[in-house]
């Protein structure tokens, strides 16, 4: 196992960081949070740098790189809690189209992404469940062609995106795995913004009332999409975990700087041993989350069989880290951390919201338990898989 980034990847990280530090200060985030101003220039800049095109094949107009490069960008985006459609477009919409679409559909939709079209993924019900078999919508064939979608989808990132990849369940009696996927255009479903904890990451509820989807927007074959959706959700989950690592690192750096500078009782508060030990524990949590997310990124990049397990492990570790860092981030800063004025609240809310999206730590631990053979049903197989 080699966790060293290539020189090209390291250079990508440096240039991304430089760009984001210049063009995505927290002033940009506050424009959205406090004044509702969408970060259009930032997104335009990312498109100009080919970031959305990075992992799209050259044949579809992309740059032809892989998930490790996306991972590098997403971690850097998390570091500056960048607002905008990157995460939903590149790590949710694009993977779903790639996994479920026909070659023609992949070409059509991903070519658009490569040139700046935005997208997102809609699957979860109100309880927060991204497993394909628990998709919130139902789909049925429309007499005369196309399909009809019904229901409400929750927790949709960037619900105003140009294209929305929608996952739905078919009737119980249908053939195949019962899961279908569609791409519906902006405005096709009623979109209700949700007042979220993290206002820098808007979330939408989408309502479908017998919406007709024409055949060319039906991804692949309905009833044959469960595996593809599962893989896309794994990729989205790992990307979110990586973004959370970036945000946690930002929290960590911010509090660490504060602890070195802020004096109480005549010395820097970072010289108090109890504070030091908190930092040591935070550092361990961060290293654990980062290493686990990198492993998961590798399983996605190399399409390794451990990707399902690795994605859940990464989300657990990132969620645990976010819980600790958000908490100690606020607590260690004292009163300052409790104000609207200080950016810590922006970071902490992003970290908390990440912890809750795409499955909580507890939900993913349950998933891990199932995957390693720990189930309440005694008839289940018993051997624990051991990632190399």
């Amino acid at each position, binding site marked *: 196992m080699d966790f060293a980034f290539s020189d090209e990847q390291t250079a990508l990280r440096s240039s991304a960081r430089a760009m984001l530090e210049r063009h995505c200060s927290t002033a940009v985030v506050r424009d959205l949070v406090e004044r509702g101003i969408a970060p259009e220039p930032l997104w335009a800049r990312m498109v100009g740098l080919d970031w959305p095109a990075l992992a799209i094949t050259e044949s579809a107009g992309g740059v032809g790189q892989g998930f490790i490069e996306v991972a590098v960008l997403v971690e850097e985006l998390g570091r500056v809690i960048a607002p905008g459609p990157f995460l939903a477009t590149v790590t949710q919409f694009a993977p779903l189209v790639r996994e479920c679409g026909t070659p023609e559909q992949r070409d059509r939709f991903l070519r658009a992404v490569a040139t700046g079209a935005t997208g997102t993924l809609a699957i979860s019900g109100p*309880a927060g469940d991204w497993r394909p078999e628990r998709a919130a919508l139902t789909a049925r064939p429309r007499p005369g062609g196309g399909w009809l979608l019904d229901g409400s989808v929750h927790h949709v990132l960037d619900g105003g995106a140009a294209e929305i990849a929608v996952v739905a369940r078919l009737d119980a009696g249908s053939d195949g795995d019962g899961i279908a996927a569609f791409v519906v255009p902006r405005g096709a479903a009623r979109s209700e913004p*949700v007042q979220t904890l*993290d206002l820098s990451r808007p979330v939408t509820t989408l309502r479908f009332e017998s919406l007709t989807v024409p055949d060319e927007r039906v991804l692949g074959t309905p009833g044959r999409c469960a595996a593809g959706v599962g893989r896309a959700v794994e990729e989205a989950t790992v990307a979110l975990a990586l973004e959370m690592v970036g945000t946690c690192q930002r929290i960590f750096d911010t509090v660490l700087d504060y602890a070195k500078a802020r004096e109480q009782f005549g010395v820097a508060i970072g010289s108090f041993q*109890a504070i030091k030990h908190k930092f040591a524990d935070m550092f361990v949590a961060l290293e654990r989350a980062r290493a686990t997310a990198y492993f998961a990124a590798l399983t996605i990049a190399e399409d390794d069989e451990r990707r399902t397990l690795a994605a859940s492990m990464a989300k657990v570790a990132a969620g645990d880290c976010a819980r600790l860092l958000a908490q100690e981030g*606020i607590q260690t800063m004292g009163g300052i951390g409790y104000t609207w004025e200080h950016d810590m609240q922006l970071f902490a809310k992003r970290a908390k919201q990440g912890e809750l999206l795409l499955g909580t730590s507890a939900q993913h631990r349950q998933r891990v338990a199932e995957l390693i053979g720990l189930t309440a049903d005694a008839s289940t197989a018993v051997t624990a898989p051991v990632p190399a």
Partner: protein
Amino acid sequence: MRLHYDQATEDFRAELRAWLEANRPQPEEMSREPSQSSAHLPPWARTWQRRLFDAGWLVPGWPPELGGRNATPVQQMVYFEEFAGSRLPRALNPQGLSIVTPSLIDFGSEEQKQRFALPSLRAEITWCLGMSEPGAGSDLAGLSTRAELADDGFVVNGQKVWTSGAQHADYCLCFVRTDPDAPKHKGISVLIVDMRSPGITIRPLPQLTDPKQADFNEVFFASVVVPRENLLGPLHGGWSIAGGSLAHERGMLWIDQASSLERTVGRFIELAAQALPDGRRLADNAVVRDQLAQLYIDAQALKFMGYHGFATFARQHVSPEHSVLKLFGTELERRLFLTMTEALGAAAIDVSTPTGRRARDEGPTAVRYLRSFAGTIAAGTSEIQRNIIAERVLGLPRR
């Protein structure tokens, strides 16, 4: 040891309960005119506190002329139990009632008592407390706001921060450095500062959950003149007032918190047992059951710890055992909302339910988690409480 109070104590409780029932402010007026900070008294609140004062139910341990009835420690305990249970506000300017007024009574001249203490008790004036500074949060002795004695009184220059209710308070009990050459804690004095004095600038610091909601403020003093007679206690003798002020009534603060936590845990247990809008029942999850049972036990334990402390050390005296209850209670509150936020999962990111500063028992779970840091940070962080326990209760050496 016994589980129940004697009949006389229960009679006292019944009397209070009947009085509260007959005299309480009405929910409609309370919600129509909510208090906007910890020093803002809407008309109903002034009436209500005055009524408590006149009936001897404001500070029952004090004599009637100070709004009390010379109640015994056990009666005071019952009093706080009842107030906590009734969910009626007792003090809408808590720092005024529980910190400033006792300090005025303990350290003030007769004239100061008449001019400031009694009007505070009668809800005619409200207070903020000028202790924390940018460079001296936990470290009061390090404060640097200066007051120089000139012909026409003290001239105050400097800055306070985290000043609750400053934007609405009539007066500030302000800790200032009057002798810059003395050792840190020997050069501090306490002044009564009229908040309408020229030279005072107030900047509210909205809290992390809402840019429009602020209790904290920064307060800037630019050559603010304070009359000489507004010095409380001896010149340079402020350090002992600080110790005394902060200690008042701490002994029974836990009752309110224990009651609130018990109620909140109870509500979450009910919530867990019902179907959520999304169809789930949290109680169907064994891990959540385990966590909620632990939270229930902890909320009960906080109460038992309070009663145990009351029995063994607190009684009439203030004790550092307060730190144990403060630490455990505020950390428990934070853990409670953290646990429930995570149990609710993605549903918890929706924070569209309206919230309010006074709505301690209301609001979205994730927002209440963020608000719970007020408990672990204000009035001595959890870290400071642990220091106090280790050094003052357990006698571990300072360095």
